């Protein structure tokens, strides 16, 4: 019966042959037509050995070497090749226990049994000496040379930043980085990463099936050589930075000094700090955790760029400049001070006893609260503007032209905006347009919602010394060659206050030091301009603030000092600023008593002795 279906054998055989021939066609395509698979196969056998270039060096403004490299070694392991190792001996050499050894080997095996992975990272040259002699005993282990960051001076940790292994997120976004590569994570290591890192090289080695090195691939035709990173010339003065950190011992706060004509940062001190060598090499992870857990000193926090303070009386200088620009204030304007500025509800903004009435210079010199409350009130109530809001917007625009309330764009990552409140902010708090000059009067004396970073304060000093302009502060003055210029910082920012209004303010600042609130800062050989400030702090004692520049005729340094919870501006910030200026301009400090008192003052966990408050020349501001 089924004989009639015998011809179906042809269909069935035909179907078998069709599939078989289709597979042969597919084989032809996969094995002969396309190259994709043979290339991938090569990738499985060729080993790409990365040549890590030395990172660029960093010098200070006088040519001193600040950051350099030291040879370090990564101990690598190929798990498949590890055979009966003398575990204890190896553990002893690199200082781990057996459990850790097994754990690391397992981790490496999980990554790949055939490819090398890092077993112990960044072994220093000293430890490597011992390891090298015995390495032949440990089959499957070899070393790959790396470089380790080293710092000549244990200072400016926040500015230098640190490097670490590139994380998965970075590797995903940037094809340059591979697992195990290093990348700048903070500071200039981060902001100048692409300049400092140089270019990795690649040597391609052929390995046979037993994983024996068979030499370079095609006589090194496809190898690339590494290129060392480019050196950076910093504007930092290492001596000054070191001196500043010394002065800030046991104090919370910052010192920022700028060369006014160029915007170059001479020092950026954030205290408490740490030795940058702590975050280099294989000790980084451990030390980083320790630093991170220190909630008393918070050493990783870069106060110079990230701490916001009300500027206190230093902001009166801005009032004086904006008031003149707005036409509501002349150098001759006099206001009386009945011991404070009445707020109309029985309360008042207090002021300390001083002669009255005062003109503008006298008001700066004595730092009269009443005077500058009136100046601020006349700016906001200016009839020229149709509303309080418009007047405030004009004030805000001029204030922000000094670099407040926005990032200055410096080349150290992490900078914060600071805060000059928007009209919308007051709308939200008091109702739309339901706020008046008296509502926000505390802005006039640099208190209230205003927030300014130390670097912005130093920039204010630079702006005044330049009579109305600034270059954005920056820490790297030249890239690659010492005499080149960092072109990213060649834009001159002009402040919205006419240069002619600055002279009177500068004169007032000079008087602050010669016979005002900041006489403690006086240096006999140098004519200095300064302004004290005391920032009210709802969490504790006031912050002591001082800004200054010197010499008056041809300013070389503009500086801001903030000492947290240290009282009046004249108590700590002014003398520290003065010592810094003396150090920078005269290269040596003659006032050893003052210097000792500043260095030894402990404002973090030591109690401030009463006697320190009784110094005759410390005046409230």
């Amino acid at each position, binding site marked *: *019966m*089924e004989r*009639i*279906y*015998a011809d*179906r*054998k042809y*269909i*069935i*055989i035909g179907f*078998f*042959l069709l*599939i*078989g021939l289709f*597979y*042969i066609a*597919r*084989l*032809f395509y*996969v*094995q*002969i037509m*396309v190259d*994709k*698979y*043979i290339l*991938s*196969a*090569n990738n*499985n*056998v060729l080993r790409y050995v990365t040549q890590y270039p030395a990172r660029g060096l960093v010098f200070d403004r006088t040519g001193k070497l600040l950051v350099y490299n030291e040879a370090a070694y990564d101990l690598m392991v190929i798990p498949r090749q590890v055979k009966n190792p003398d575990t204890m001996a190896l553990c002893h050499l690199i200082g781990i226990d057996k459990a850790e050894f097994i754990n690391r080997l397992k981790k490496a095996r999980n990554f790949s*049994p*055939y490819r090398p992975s890092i077993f112990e990272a960044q072994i220093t040259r000293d430890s490597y000496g011992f390891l090298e002699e015995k390495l032949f005993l440990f089959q499957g282990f070899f070393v790959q040379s790396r470089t380790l960051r080293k710092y000549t001076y244990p200072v400016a940790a926040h500015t230098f930043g640190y490097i670490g292994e590139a994380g998965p997120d970075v590797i995903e976004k940037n094809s340059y980085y591979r697992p195990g590569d290093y990348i700048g994570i903070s500071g200039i290591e981060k902001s100048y990463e692409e300049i400092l890192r140089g270019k990795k090289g690649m040597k391609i080695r052929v390995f*046979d*099936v*037993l994983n024996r090195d068979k030499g370079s691939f095609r006589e090194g035709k496809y190898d690339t050589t590494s290129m060392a990173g480019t050196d950076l010339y910093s504007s930092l003065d290492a001596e000054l930075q070191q001196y500043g950190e010394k002065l800030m011992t046991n104090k919370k706060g910052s010192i920022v000094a700028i060369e006014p004509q160029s915007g170059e940062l001479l020092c950026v001190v954030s205290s408490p700090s740490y030795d940058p060598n702590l975050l280099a090499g294989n000790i980084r992870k451990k030390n980083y955790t320790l630093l991170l857990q220190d909630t008393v000193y918070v050493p990783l926090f870069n106060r110079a760029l990230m701490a916001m303070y009300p500027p206190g009386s230093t902001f009166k200088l801005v009032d004086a400049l904006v008031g003149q620009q707005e036409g509501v204030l002349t150098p001759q304007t006099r206001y009386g001070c009945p011991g404070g500025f009445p707020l109309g509800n029985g309360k008042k903004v207090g002021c300390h006893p001083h002669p009255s009435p005062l003109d503008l210079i006298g008001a700066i010199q004595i730092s009269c609260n009443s005077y500058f409350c009136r100046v601020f009130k006349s700016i906001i109530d200016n009839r020229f503007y149709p509303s309080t809001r418009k007047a405030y917007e004009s004030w805000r625009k001029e204030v922000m032209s000094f670099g407040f309330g926005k990032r200055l764009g410096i080349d150290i990552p992490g900078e914060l905006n600071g805060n000059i409140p928007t009209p919308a902010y007051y709308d939200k708090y008091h109702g739309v347009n339901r706020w008046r000059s008296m509502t926000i009067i505390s802005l006039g004396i640099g208190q209230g919602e205003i927030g300014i970073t130390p670097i912005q304060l130093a920039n204010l000093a630079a702006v005044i010394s330049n009579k109305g302009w600034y270059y954005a502060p920056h820490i790297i003055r030249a890239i690659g060659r010492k005499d080149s210029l960092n072109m990213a910082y060649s834009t001159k920012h002009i402040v919205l206050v006419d240069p002619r209004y600055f002279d009177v303010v500068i004169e007032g600042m000079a008087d602050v030091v010669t016979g005002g609130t900041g006489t403690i800062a006086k240096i006999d050989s140098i004519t200095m301009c300064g302004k004290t400030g005391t920032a009210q702090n709802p969490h504790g004692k006031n912050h002591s603030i001082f800004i200054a520049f010197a010499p008056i005729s041809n300013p070389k340094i503009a500086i801001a000092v903030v000492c947290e919870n240290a009282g009046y501006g004249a108590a700590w910030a002014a003398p520290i600023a003065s010592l810094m200026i003396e150090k920078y301009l005269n290269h040596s400090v003659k006032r050893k008593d003052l210097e000792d008192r500043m260095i030894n003052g402990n404002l973090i966990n030591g109690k401030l002795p009463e006697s320190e408050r009784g110094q005759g020349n410390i005046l409230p501001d």
Partner: protein
Amino acid sequence: MREDKGIFYRIDWVLVGIYLTLVIIGWLNIYAAVFNENHHHIADLTQKYGKQMAFIIAAILLALGTLIIDPKFFSQFAWFIYGFFLFMLVIVIFSGREVAGSKGWFAIAGFGIQPAEFAKMATVLALAKYLGTLDVSISRFRSLVTASAIILFPAIIVLLQHDTGSAIVFLALVIVFYRAGLTGFIPLAFIVLPVLGVLALLIPKLMLVAVLLVLAGGFYFYSNQKLRTIVLISAVFLGSVGFVFSIDYSVKHILEPHQRNRIHVLLGQNFDLKGAGYNVNQSLIAIGSGRFFGKGFLQGTQTKYNFVPEQSTDFIFCTVGEEWGFLGSSILVLLYLGLFTRIILLAERQRSRFSRFYGYGVASILFFHFAINIGMTLGLMPVIGIPLPFVSYGGSSLWAFTVLLFIFIRQDSYRYELV
């Protein structure tokens, strides 16, 4: 003593020759796949190639044993053998050992025995027996149901062992149905439906429906345009559309994520080379790097580095592709095609219906394994773990395939006596 002289005189040496060649190719490639410089000895029983050597010797003894048994035994005891292995399949679910997620193994003297491999042989015997019965005609609905049940029983039990791959193999026997006179529509559907399913996932559904509509229109236009034809065309059209939508729905809503992933990998829509696509990609790399002549015996790098998983079992063809190149792999494919064609031709010369259907069953099972296994290594078929007959590492599969083939060789050698 005519029979004694006859056994070796009348057996088909072409089939035996192909069989031996495949077994040797298999052993050489298993040796290459697991080659390790510390273990040179080819009979080292701690190594897979040593074990496979033992398996081969046992397989040859099994083949000889099969050739000695009276050929009538297989048709007479077909139902008994079928029943026995069905019973074993059920037993193994409860007392078996779990290997790689499927519970289909007996542990006997340190070796794993997988009854599912032998059940294929038993099922082919039973099916041939049933279809060989004089009054059975597959074109009758009753017979079709019975024949289908013979196939589906073991398939379902194997499915319960979580061995999807082996279960699907039983469906290959639909080729035997076709030869027995089943309308061509059903085997055709076995080919058309997967194609339609793939298209349902690859191209927009509405476009596919439009294409089907045009096809239906075309058939209508060229048909005799009688009512019966119109109803048939409409039914097929609606069935296809329903199938397209149900495939889409089940992939999106019913399948487990890892199964969905495998489907996407197969369709080239997923390039997750570390995950589900890893095996296939590494397999293609190994085969592709073989080029025309291959890298030579033991010179493969991909296989040696264990880049390809399941190198000696399901992915053994990678080693062939890498070390023997296009030349070697094509010859292997042609050997298989020769084997299948030879079996079909021999089946057709049988006078006994049992022997003929048995031959078709053998060819179907072997072909299905070949098509799925090599298709999988070439990225053309889903990753279903079934062995390449006679070549893949493993005792059970080698023995079962050997017995499967040699029963046929035995039947063929006796074709004049069997009616």
